[in-house]
């Protein structure tokens, strides 16, 4: 706001607050719409139209104009910014679109898992994050965040529930497709003590990924599960092996 702008604003606010001049109120709101627009632009995502957000932000501006106290010594601009931002944030909360809420990220994660499969089939290759974001109707940033959500190895991920991929898997299910002679292989894979802590399916995935040279998508196709699930299982397996190795090492030290 220029110095001239500030002076005019103060005069209009005075006219409104001290003399009830409704046109002055309109005029001061109009003068500050560029501010609302500039703030609304920060919040525009794939699902939002700038005009809708400007509407929302304007509510904040009007509240600020109405609540403004002339003797406080701040400019309207400074005073209005938190109020406008507050309205924008409330708008997202009400619509349930704050992606930072863990539940929303979990929902996105589940959708992404299916989208990876669908897009892989359509494209003939693993999709890029940009392609996933477009298909999911969200930003690349949120896709990257949601991909991490799927990775948490916690007791929660082992509980059954709708959409939980772990719920419908029987650890023995992969057994039917084991190559004959797998158990007798001289391959390092079998000689690795750490692998003992894994179940049959996990052991097979680790073997395919690190000793048989299959990619994640190839393993997913082989095992009939999603790529994201393969990724999760690999990471979980590595983490469990690390824990087991720590246990083995400390018991060896004590023994």
């Amino acid at each position: 706001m220029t110095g001239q702008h500030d002076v005019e604003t103060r005069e209009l606010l005075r006219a409104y607050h001290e003399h009830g001049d409704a046109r002055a109120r309109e005029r001061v709101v109009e003068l500050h719409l560029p501010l609302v627009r500039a703030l609304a632009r920060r919040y525009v995502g794939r699902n939002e139209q700038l005009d809708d957000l400007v509407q929302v932000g304007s509510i904040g501006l009007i509240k600020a104009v109405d609540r403004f106290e002339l003797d406080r010594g701040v400019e309207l601009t400074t005073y209005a910014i938190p109020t406008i931002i507050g309205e924008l944030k409330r708008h997202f909360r009400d619509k349930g679109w704050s992606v930072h809420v863990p539940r929303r990220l979990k929902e996105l994660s589940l959708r992404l898992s299916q989208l990876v499969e669908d897009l892989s089939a359509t494209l003939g290759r693993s999709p890029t994050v940009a392609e996933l974001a477009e298909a999911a109707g969200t930003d690349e940033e949120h896709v990257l965040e949601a991909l991490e959500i799927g990775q948490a190895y916690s007791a929660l991920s082992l509980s059954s529930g709708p959409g939980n991929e772990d719920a419908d898997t029987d650890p023995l299910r992969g057994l039917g497709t084991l190559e004959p002679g797998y158990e007798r292989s001289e391959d390092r894979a079998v000689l690795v003590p750490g692998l003992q802590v894994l179940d049959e399916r996990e052991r097979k995935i680790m073997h395919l990924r690190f000793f048989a040279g299959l990619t994640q998508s190839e393993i997913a196709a082989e095992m009939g599960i999603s790529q994201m699930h393969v990724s999760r299982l690999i990471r979980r397996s590595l983490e469990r092996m690390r824990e087991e190795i720590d246990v083995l090492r400390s018991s060896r030290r004590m023994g």
Partner: protein
Amino acid sequence: MTSMLRLTFPSRPEYVVLSRLVLSGLARAQAIGPNELGDLKLAVTEASSNSVRHAYDRAGGTVEIVYELGDSHIAIEVWDEGCGFDARASEPEPGALDEGGLGLSIIHAVCDETRLGRASGGTGSWIRFVKRIGGEDA
């Protein structure tokens, strides 16, 4: 007990998203409420964008961001090799509703403390902002 993380990237707009992604990662490492995370992402975007905006006249240049993670606060310092938010002073219309002025106002509005400074012994400037965290359901 504070932990420090440091991110550096070229002064170009396409890298600004990384400054937010670090916060996304920190939110997995420590309880940060969704409101607080949103505010911090907004603030770091404003600071990073401002650093990148004034880099056009220099070939190259790096932005450096230090994230200081405490039990109940996060402090972020954004360093660049230019004049930071002070660039406003050299604009033809000082105080106009320019991106720099607005950016600083936004950071003020969503953080608990904000400080600006010049880097000692050379060109460069920094902005530091602090926000209390853990005050809402994470």
